[in-house]
């Protein structure tokens, strides 16, 4: 059993290299339940890599991630998959929608994987698309959406199953200020409603200012002086 004040998620000494590129060189951080954390830093500083390690998509070479008292590296593959489906919502930076499926079908996917009733899944998915201002692309395939529409569909898909942590990589990156405001508001208000924590990778200062706390990455390290 974890204590109420325990962090929901901690990472200790994460290292990850791609060939000779050291994307993460020992990053430690923690996330409290319901907390909104911004991850900022220059291009190539390791933000997306950190997010993917936290979400259990990438395996760090050293260090470990702990979620609700459990080390991700000690879970079996099927336990990790289950965790990703039920507890974590992920909005990736690039190409994440299934190209053959329409907007609403993409949003429904996590619910269907969790064996929800199809009709109910469709109704709640349409509701999420509306809330994010993307109702008009419910029956459109990703190839025919604008970048911002696709981004909103991806956010809807990350939120639809009511995750405990939402990871979002540049969720407002392709959006103008007002559309970005709307997506961020939907993301944060739904997180508030369900008590979910949110990790936002962002270059957008409005987004960073909305977070409770900020981690700044530089060359694969969390600048300790920059953790506010």
């Amino acid at each position, binding site marked *: 059993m974890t204590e109420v004040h325990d962090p929901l998620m901690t990472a200790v000494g994460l290292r990850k290299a791609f060939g000779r590129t050291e994307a993460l060189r020992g990053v430690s951080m923690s996330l409290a339940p319901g907390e909104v954390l911004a991850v900022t830093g*220059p291009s190539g500083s390791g933000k997306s890599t950190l997010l993917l390690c936290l979400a259990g998509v990438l395996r760090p070479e050293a260090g470990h991630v702990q979620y609700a008292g459990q080390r991700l590296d000690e879970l079996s593959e099927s336990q990790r998959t289950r965790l990703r489906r039920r507890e974590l919502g992920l909005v990736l930076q690039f190409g994440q929608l299934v190209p053959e499926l329409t907007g609403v079908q993409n949003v429904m996917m996590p619910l269907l994987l969790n064996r929800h009733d199809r009709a109910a899944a469709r109704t709640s998915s349409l509701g999420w698309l509306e809330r994010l201002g993307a109702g008009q692309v419910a029956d459109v395939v990703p190839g025919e959406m604008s970048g911002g529409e696709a981004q909103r569909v991806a956010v809807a898909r990350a939120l639809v199953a009511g995750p405990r942590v939402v990871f979002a990589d540049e969720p407002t990156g392709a959006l103008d*200020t007002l559309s970005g405001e709307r997506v961020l508001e939907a993301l944060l208000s739904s997180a508030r409603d369900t008590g979910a924590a949110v990790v936002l990778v962002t270059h957008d*200062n*409005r987004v*960073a*200012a*909305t977070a409770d706390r*900020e981690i700044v990455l*530089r060359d694969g390290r969390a600048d300790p*002086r*920059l953790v*506010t």
Partner: protein
Amino acid sequence: MSLGHVLLGVLADGPAHGYDLKRAHDERFPAVKTLAYGQVYATLARLERDGLVEVAETTQGAGPERTAYALTAEGRAALLGWLEKPEPAGPYPADDLVRKTVVALRLGADADAYLRRQREVHLARMRELLALQRATDAVDARIVVDHTISHLDADLRWLETAANRLAEGRGR
């Protein structure tokens, strides 16, 4: 923009007393210097002399006599004429953010640390403004806050670029 235009602009919302004008102005533009009453009354007198505003009503309450002013047709025309001309795009003078950074570099002091402290202050202010903006439904109030936020954003981008330039300089 002259104070005359400022007051005419506030009167575009409807007749008001000098006191209310000051209050409406200070509330709507929280980021700029507040108006002084003396200035407001002197300017109203000049605008009245020039026919741009007129006395709408004088009331005698318990206190001193209060005069409400209204925009005249000429006042409205003056505002419309002023709207026709876009403002010059700058130049924006190097402000204290830039000066401090340059001085830190000249002194060999910790410029990074300064940039970081400044980012925190700017982010905190942006957080307050975003909350202020969310708290209102008035379109004009939201637009006013957008302007302040955009300038803070420009400063924040500059702070980030400056920090990256310093890192780039060290890497060479």
